[in-house]
C-alpha cells in the first residue's frame, strides 16, 4: 500500500497557501505575538520576553493614544458625513443631467485615481501659509490680509486635512449612490407624486430608503479607512505641529519607527484594527437591514 498523499486540490493550492502564509499569516501572528512583548527594534532579544497584557494596559491609560484615537474617530465621523452629503448631492445632480452624463461620471471619479500621497502634497501646497493657493485667493479677494496658518494652527490643520480627505473620497459615495439612483425604478416616484408628495417628501419617503443601502456600502468601504487614515496626514502635517493633528496611524508609526517600540506599536495597531472592524460591522448590519427593507435581490 502506498503512503498517504494529500488530496489534489490541496496540492494545487499549496503554492498560493505558502505565499499567503509568508506575506500575511506569519506577519499577522508575529505582530500579534510581539504586541505581548516589550519588543524594541534596537534590542532584538526583547522579542522573547513575554509581558502579557502590559502593552495594552499601558495604552488604556495613555492620554496621547486616546487623544489620537478620539481625533481619528472625529475626523472620520465628520469626513464620512460630509462625504455622504456631498456625494448624495453630486449623484443627484449628475442623475438629472440629460446630456454628457457619461463624461460627468468619469470626471467624478478623478479624485479616486490619485494616490493619497499626491493628494496630500497637493493640499499641503494649497494650504501653505506663504505660497498656498488658498491664502493667495483669500488675500486677492480682500477677505483677509493675513497669512492664515492653515497647517500650523491645530483646528485649522484638522480642517485642512478634512478637506483633503473629503475631496479624495467623496467620489466613493457619489459613484455608489449614483449607481443606486440609476438602478432605482422610476414608477414608485411617480406614484408618490400622484399620492401627494412634495419633492422633498418624495425624496424622504421613496428615494432615500431605496438608495440607503448604496450609501451604507460606501460607508462600509470608507469605514475600513478608520484603520488607514495615514497617507494624507503623514504628508500634510505628519501629525504635527506638536502632535496637534496626531491620528492613530501617525502615532503608531512614530512609536514603531521613531521610538522603535515595536511591541507597543503593534498593540496600538490591534486596538485600531478592532475599532475599524467595529465600524465595518456596524455599517454592514445597517446595510443588511436596509437591503431587506427594499427587498433587494443582491
Amino acid at each position, binding site marked *: 500500500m502506498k503512503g498517504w498523499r494529500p488530496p489534489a486540490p490541496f496540492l494545487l493550492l499549496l503554492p498560493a497557501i505558502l505565499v499567503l502564509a509568508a506575506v500575511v499569516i506569519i506577519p499577522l501572528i508575529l505582530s500579534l505575538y510581539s504586541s505581548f512583548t516589550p519588543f524594541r527594534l534596537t534590542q532584538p532579544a526583547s522579542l522573547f520576553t513575554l509581558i502579557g497584557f502590559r502593552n495594552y494596559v499601558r495604552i488604556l491609560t495613555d492620554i496621547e493614544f486616546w487623544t489620537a484615537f478620539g481625533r481619528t474617530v472625529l475626523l472620520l465621523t465628520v469626513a464620512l458625513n460630509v462625504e455622504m452629503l456631498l456625494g448624495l448631492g453630486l449623484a443627484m445632480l449628475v442623475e438629472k443631467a440629460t446630456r454628457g452624463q457619461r463624461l460627468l461620471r468619469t470626471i467624478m471619479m478623478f479624485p479616486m485615481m490619485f494616490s493619497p500621497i499626491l493628494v496630500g502634497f497637493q493640499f499641503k501646497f494649497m494650504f501653505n501659509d506663504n505660497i498656498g493657493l488658498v491664502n493667495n485667493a483669500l488675500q486677492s479677494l480682500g477677505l483677509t490680509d493675513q497669512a492664515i496658518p492653515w497647517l500650523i494652527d491645530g483646528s485649522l490643520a484638522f480642517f485642512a486635512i478634512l478637506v483633503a480627505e473629503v475631496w479624495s473620497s467623496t467620489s466613493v459615495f457619489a459613484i455608489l449612490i449614483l449607481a443606486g439612483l440609476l438602478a432605482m425604478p422610476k414608477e*414608485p416616484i*411617480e406614484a408618490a407624486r400622484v*399620492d401627494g408628495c412634495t419633492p422633498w417628501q418624495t425624496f424622504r419617503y421613496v428615494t432615500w430608503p431605496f438608495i440607503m443601502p448604496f450609501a451604507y456600502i460606501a460607508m462600509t468601504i470608507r469605514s475600513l479607512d478608520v484603520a488607514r487614515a495615514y497617507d494624507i496626514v503623514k504628508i500634510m502635517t505628519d501629525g504635527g505641529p506638536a502632535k496637534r493633528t496626531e491620528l492613530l496611524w501617525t502615532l503608531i508609526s512614530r512609536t514603531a519607527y521613531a521610538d522603535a517600540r515595536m511591541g507597543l506599536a503593534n498593540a496600538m495597531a490591534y486596538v485600531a484594527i478592532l475599532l475599524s472592524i467595529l465600524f465595518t460591522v456596524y455599517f454592514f448590519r445597517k446595510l443588511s437591514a436596509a437591503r431587506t427593507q427594499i427587498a433587494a435581490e443582491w
Partner: protein
Amino acid sequence: MATVSLEKLVKRYGSLDVVHGIDLEVADREFIALVGPSGCGKSTTLRMIAGLEPVSAGNIKIGGRVINDLPPRARNLAMVFQSYALYPHMTVRENMGFSLKIAGQKPEDIAPQVDEAARTLDLTHLLDRRPSQLSGGQRQRVAMGRAIVRNPDVFLFDEPLSNLDAKLRTQMRVEIKKLHAKVQSTVIYVTHDQVEAMTLADRIVIMRDGYIEQVGTPEDVFQRPNSKFVAGFIGSPPMNLKDADIADGQVVFANGDRLPLPARFRDRVTAGQKVTFGLRPDDLYPAGHGIHSGEDADVHRQDLRVILTEPLGNETLVFSDYAGAEWVGRMLNPRRLAPGEALSFCFDLSQAHLFDRESGRTLRG
C-alpha cells in the same frame, strides 16, 4: 365638480407624435373607459392627466380650470399604474396608507380606512407583507387599494385588473362599480377587456394611433360603430368584415357571391361603390338557433358548410365558408355540429353595417 376636459391635447416625444390633438369632455362623476390597441396612447393620455408627462400642446382642464402646469400633488387624483408602481420598501399596509399619511392624517384615522380597503380587496391576510412577497395579482390589488383609500376628484385606472384571474376579475369589477357609486368621483379607466369597458363605463372612448376614433355609450359603439376600426375592435369575436362592391342594388363579394343590400343603406350607396360589409357573429346563425331583431324580410337565408366549431357551453361559435372567406357565427341553444356539415344560415341584414372601403367610415346616416 370634477369635470375633465381635454382640448386639442398633443403629446410629442422628440419629433414623434403619439397623441394627436384629442378632444374629450368627461362629465362630473362620469365613468369613462379608454380602449384601443396596444401602443395607441392610452397610458400616455392618462399620464398627462395625472401630471406625470408634460403636455406638448393643448389643454387639460379639471373642474373648468386649466391644470397643464400643476404638479401631480395639486391635482387631487388617484392613479393605478399599469406597472403597479408599489413602494418596494413599504408593507402592504404602509403602501395603502401612504397617501393618507402624506395628507397629514393621524395613524389611528388611517388604520380603519386601510383595513376597510383591504377587506374589499381581499388583502387582509397580506397587510404585513412587502410587495416582493406578493404575486402579480396581489400586487395589482394593492395598487388598487392605494387608490381607493383616497377620496380624489378623479380616479385614473390603467388596466387595473389585467393580471387577475377570471373569477377575481369579475368580483373586482363589481367592487369598482360599487366604489364608483359610493365615492362620486370621476373615473377614467383604461382597459383591454371589452367586458370591463361595456359593463362599467357610462361612455367608451376608442383610441387608435393617438386619435380618438369614437366616443359613445356602450350601446352606441357596439350597435352604431362609426368606422370599420371600431366595428372590428368592439365585440368578441369581432365583426365579420368583408370587402364588397355595390352592383344591381346588391352587395357583391369578390368571388361573385351576393347578398341583398340592407334596407337602411339603400339610399346611401351608389352602384359601383367600393364598400366593406360588416355583420356581427350574433347576426349570423344557423336557422332556429338565433334571434333576429328586424323584419323577417331582412333575414337572408343561405346554406353554408361548417368548417370548425368552438363550443362555449351556452353557445357555439360556428366558422363557415362564404364568399371565399371565413365567417364566424353564433349558435344559441347549440347542438353538436360535425365539420363539413351543411346548414341553413340566417344573415340578419337589418343589423348589417356598410363602411366606405377607402376611408373606413360608416355609410349609415
